[in-house]
């Protein structure tokens, strides 16, 4: 029964570990795919996913069924690409699904590929994910042997080939068009739009890119229907969500909960609250590239609209907590170091602007800040961060935590400048800038 409440992780709970092909099928696995392929048209599959209001779980929240419907009805090759490049700092949800229930993804991809008419699918998997690779690779082989991939699946004329591309690294590969370049064996610079991937993606062919968690939601929707899926969510949004918490809490981890569960419940009930002696100061609600929220936001539901209204993004839904032992300047420096280093180097504001921010933050953190530095950060952040000012949204993501840190923790920045020292330094060593 837990699968009906927790369609993503219920099977893992039931089995108490890795879900094998046998266990997966025993729990009704691949039946959704069988129904889709043998009883439904691709259009009907798209329709039910649309109706279920499944939204992209990679961070952007775009309605999945709508995205699928953008694939033009043209002859020739189409691709489904699963974005398994889980590199958003603070995020560890897709790893869990792959390590423990890889067939859920395989089935989700089989259904999605059928829905968009793709005969070739790829999982773009981040390079450091060795164990997830081993499990997924084994699952794909098992599925192939069982006739669940390859030619004539379920006795239909439908054929699907599924391969894994292991990434050579770099955060930017998570951007869907950069990912396509990487998949094609090129440098992972994001692409110009138009063309949009559904019209012209991998190798110039229609391509849908979906996140692992998104695709793992598809079999459940096909099994239990759109209405069931809608009812799983608490607020406006449908389904469950994998929420995670890292930082100084008693029980860091990952939970599948109805989408729209409050931040407070996630932190206090599931993550066991803050460790003793530490006070919560800031929350990065959905990974490193989301704006800080603070204590006043604890009662917000974690869904796309509520978090956006509070000036941040639900992102990947895996939150990072900053406690009162952490220097807001230091964490900002850490974040800007990350984003500057992970810039692909294509457009000027991101490539040259982020290292400058990093350098100024390093100066402030080291007590070498100068008057006017905060205004310099404000101005540059505004120019670098505004969507459209840079080629893709990498720099926008970089600026979100910085601008919000400058807003919520400004006194810390000012104190560094005024005193020429970091008062947190005794607690935590200063990270040197790669400058």
């Amino acid at each position, binding site marked *: 029964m837990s699968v009906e409440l927790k369609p993503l992780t219920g099977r893992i709970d039931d089995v108490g570990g890795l879900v094998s092909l046998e266990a997966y099928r025993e729990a009704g696995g691949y039946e959704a795919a069988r129904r889709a392929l043998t009883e439904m048209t691709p259009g009907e599959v798209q329709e039910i996913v649309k109706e279920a209001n499944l939204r992209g779980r990679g961070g952007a929240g775009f309605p999945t069924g709508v995205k699928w419907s953008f694939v033009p009805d043209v002859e020739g090759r189409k691709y489904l690409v699963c974005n398994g490049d*889980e590199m958003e700092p*603070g995020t560890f949800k897709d790893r869990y699904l792959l390590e423990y229930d890889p067939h859920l993804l395989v089935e989700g991809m089989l259904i999605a590929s059928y829905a968009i008419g793709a005969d070739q699918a790829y999982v773009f998997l981040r390079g450091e994910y060795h164990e997830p690779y081993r499990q997924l690779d084994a699952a794909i082989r098992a599925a192939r042997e069982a006739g669940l991939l390859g030619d004539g699946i379920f006795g239909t004329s439908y054929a699907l080939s599924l391969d894994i591309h292991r990434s*050579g690294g*770099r955060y930017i590969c998570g951007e869907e068009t950069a990912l396509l370049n990487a998949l094609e*064996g090129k440098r992972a610079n994001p692409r110009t739009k138009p063309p949009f991937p559904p019209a012209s993606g991998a190798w110039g062919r229609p391509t849908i890119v979906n996140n692992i968690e998104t695709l793992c939601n598809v079999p459940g929707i096909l099994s239990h229907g759109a209405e069931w899926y809608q009812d799983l969510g608490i607020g406006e949004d449908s389904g469950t969500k994998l929420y995670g918490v890292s930082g100084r809490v008693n029980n860091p981890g990952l939970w599948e909960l109805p989408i729209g569960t409050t931040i407070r419940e996630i932190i206090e009930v599931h993550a066991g609250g803050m460790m003793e002696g530490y006070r919560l100061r800031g929350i990065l609600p959905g990974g*490193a590239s989301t704006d800080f929220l603070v204590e006043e936001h604890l009662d917000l539901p974690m869904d796309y609209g509520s978090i956006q209204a509070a000036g941040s993004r639900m992102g990947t839904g895996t939150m990072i907590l900053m406690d009162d032992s952490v220097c807001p300047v230091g964490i900002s420096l850490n974040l800007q170091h*990350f984003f500057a*280093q992970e810039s*692909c180097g294509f457009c000027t504001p991101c490539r040259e602007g982020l290292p400058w921010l990093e350098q100024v933050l390093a100066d402030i953190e080291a007590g070498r800040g100068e008057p006017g530095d905060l205004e310099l950060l404000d101005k540059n952040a505004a120019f670098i961060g505004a969507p459209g000012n840079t080629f893709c949204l990498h720099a926008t993501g970089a600026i979100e935590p910085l601008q919000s840190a400058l807003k919520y923790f400004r006194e810390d920045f000012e104190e560094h400048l005024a005193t020429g020292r970091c008062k947190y330094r005794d607690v935590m060593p200063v990270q040197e800038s790669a400058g």
Partner: protein
Amino acid sequence: MSEVEFIEVLSNEEIDLIEEAASHVPDRPSAAIEALQIVQEKRGWISDQSIGAIARLLGMSAAELDSIATFYNLIFRQPVGRHVVMVCDSVSCYVMGCDNLRVAVEDSIGVKPGETTADDRFTLLPIVCLGACDRAPAMMIDDQLFGPVKADDLPGILEQFE
């Protein structure tokens, strides 16, 4: 170096694996990253010679392939030790004290990030979020993930890698 010699740099096994990878993509240069990974898996890193040989095998110029190789941080264009130690420096691990862990690793193996021990046993590299944030601070040695790692755990972990 002549073209024939270029190919001879690669073993038959490497060539077979690269050919297999190339059969899963529409054109040969699309298998560039897989090919680099295959050769790195065998040799630890990608030398200029390997670049030339792989490029030739895939029908591209050495510069084209190197342009790709130098983009990706998991493709090593310099020699590394027998084991690559990657200490996560991203935000969750930062909150949980990754700088302390990094310093402890540096002290244990005696090299700074980007360096290789004199006995070629370890290369220490910083790495972005390993997706083990609930186990922060995390580190990875070769393909094994560790976390949360306390300084006291290090000797026991490191001794598994000779």
